[in-house]
Each structure stands twice: as structure tokens, then as C-alpha cells.
């Protein structure tokens, strides 16, 4: 490059003009199969946020949804069919992580 700035990535040096990065915003741990948590520091109004869920007990993570108006994350067990055996065991030790890309 003749000017500007580059960053070291897995794909080598990349122009800062063309790179998107993720930054850590917030995290909390959960131990119940359902619940809510308020995260005022997170915003997804422009679609450039992301929430991930990492389980510590190797079991299935909860299904979750984010309400950007109330800033509340809700989680619960996935919608299971009562008429067939459920092969998922629900995690009771997990962590939500909030990311931003903007």
C-alpha cells in the first residue's frame, strides 16, 4: 500500500478501510433454563450487534431473543415436540456474550 494503515489478521495484512472487527461489549453467566437479563450497554438497532451463547456443561444452549427497546435478553428451553423423545439436554451453565461491529 502507498498510504494508510493495515492490520495483522489471519489473512495477513488488511487495509483498515476494508476491515470489520468485533468488539466485546458485555457478558454474563446463566444457570437457569429460562430467565431475563437487562443489558443497557448493548444496542442492535442498526443490525450490527451479535449475541452468542457458550455452554460450559456441553449441553444444549437455551433459545434466546433480544428486545432492543427494553434492552432485555430473554432465554428459555427450545420449542420441543411433546410427542417425540427429546434428544437435547438443556444447559444450566452457560454464558452470553454481546458483540458489536460498528
Amino acid at each position: 500500500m502507498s498510504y494508510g494503515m493495515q492490520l495483522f489478521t489471519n489473512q495477513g495484512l488488511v487495509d483498515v478501510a476494508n476491515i470489520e472487527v468485533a468488539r466485546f461489549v458485555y457478558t454474563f453467566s446463566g444457570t437457569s433454563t429460562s430467565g431475563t437479563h437487562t443489558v443497557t450497554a448493548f444496542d442492535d438497532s442498526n443490525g450490527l450487534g451479535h449475541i452468542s451463547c457458550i455452554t460450559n456443561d456441553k449441553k444444549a444452549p437455551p433459545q434466546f431473543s433480544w428486545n432492543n427497546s427494553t434492552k432485555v435478553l430473554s432465554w428459555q428451553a427450545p420449542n420441543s415436540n411433546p410427542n417425540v423423545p427429546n434428544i437435547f439436554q438443556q444447559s444450566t451453565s452457560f454464558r452470553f456474550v454481546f458483540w458489536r461491529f460498528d
Partner: protein
Amino acid sequence: MSYGVTITNSQNHKVIQDGDPIYALKRSGTLSPVKQGPETGWYAYDVSVSSAEPTGTEEVFFKVNVGNWIAHKPFFSWLGGPPWQYQYYEPELSQYNSLWNHSSNQSTLPYYVFDRMDNIPNAGNPSGYGMQVFNSNGTVCWDSNKVTNRVSRGGTVGSTSTNISSTANAISLRSWQAAVGPIVNGNRNYLTGHVATRTSTSAWNIAIGNQDWGWFARSPSDGTTAQIPNSPYINNADARYLLAYV
């Protein structure tokens, strides 16, 4: 801002800033399959017993070549029982926890674990060269001596097939969807769930698709085979994905 550091890209998105730590590479490696088949090129990887398993604020991305797919299934090997009407037995691949199935022309699966910069070993330590950025709490937000996680985009996918325009070559995926059948008496069928396919160098597709084979139903009362006339879901839920460059 009245002071500090902010460097943005052409979209005016922050790349380097002094507010929050960005994500960087923490470790990487290659997984070998714990099981192969039933179809050519189908492999299963038990992530939970490998260093690819994320903990804390980490996230794992798997590199997927064009034309290949990957799926996530957090299953246990024991699959139902009384008082259920049916039991499922002998899946070909789904016998491990935190399992990722993969179809590829090569059996190994490259993984990359990223974490926030202040959790990267030695990030922010004096190195004698380069550039570091800290926030007002003294937390390192960026370090030029570490590998920056270059992301593409993330989102949620339901039951509708979704095409994603992205030149990213790696994905982090969590899925809760599972269905099986229909099953004719005595026969087997596929297990279906969210499958992420890298369809080209500039696109991905995430849709409900075949993940595994070999499932059949058996009555727990007398052990005879049973049939499932339709294709009932087991879990009906969304998938969440995040794309990145590795």
C-alpha cells in the same frame, strides 16, 4: 470525541478504539474426525473434548471450503426412552456432545478460537515495538502484535433457507433445530437440522437439511420397529451464526 483513539473503516465502523477490547486470535488447530460416514465425505468431530471448545468469552470459528457444509448438534448419545412412544437408535454420526458434522473433500477441520483482546496472553504487555491501545480503565483494547479477528456479519436463521452474501471463509454456528423422519416401519431416515453451506467464494446458505443418517424408531414397550408417518420436529428453533475471515 475530545480525546483518545478511534480509527474507522470506509463504512465509518470502528476498527481500533479505546472503549472496548476487540476480538483477536487466541489459538487454532485442526480437528480429526471421531467418526466417518455414512455418506462419502461426511465426518463428525467431538469439539467438547478438544481445544476447539470455547469457554468464557471465547468463540470458535470453523474454516469451510467452497462447496462444503457444517452443522452443530449438541446431542447426547442416549436418545429417549419410556414413557415416550418412540426411541431413536443408532445414528451414524450423532453420538457425541457438542458435535459438529462436516462434509468435505478432506477429513480434517481447521478451527480458530477468538477471545477479547484483554484475555489474549501477553496482549498489552510491553513488546518494544508496535502499537497498543488501552481504555480509561487500563484494559487493552487492541495490540498490533496480536491477530485481529476480522468478522463479516452475524444473524439469525429460522426454517426458511437463507442466502448470505459474504466472502468470509469461516463460521460460528449454534443450532437447536432437529427433526427426523418420515420413517417407514423398519427403515431409517435422515436427521435434519440447520446446515451452513459455503456455496461460493462470496456466498453462504443456511437451511434445514440432512445432517445425519441411520435413525429409526422403535417401540419401547415391545422392541418392535415403529413408523413415523410424517416428519415431526424434535426441537423447532432458530440458528445463530457469525461469519469471519481466517
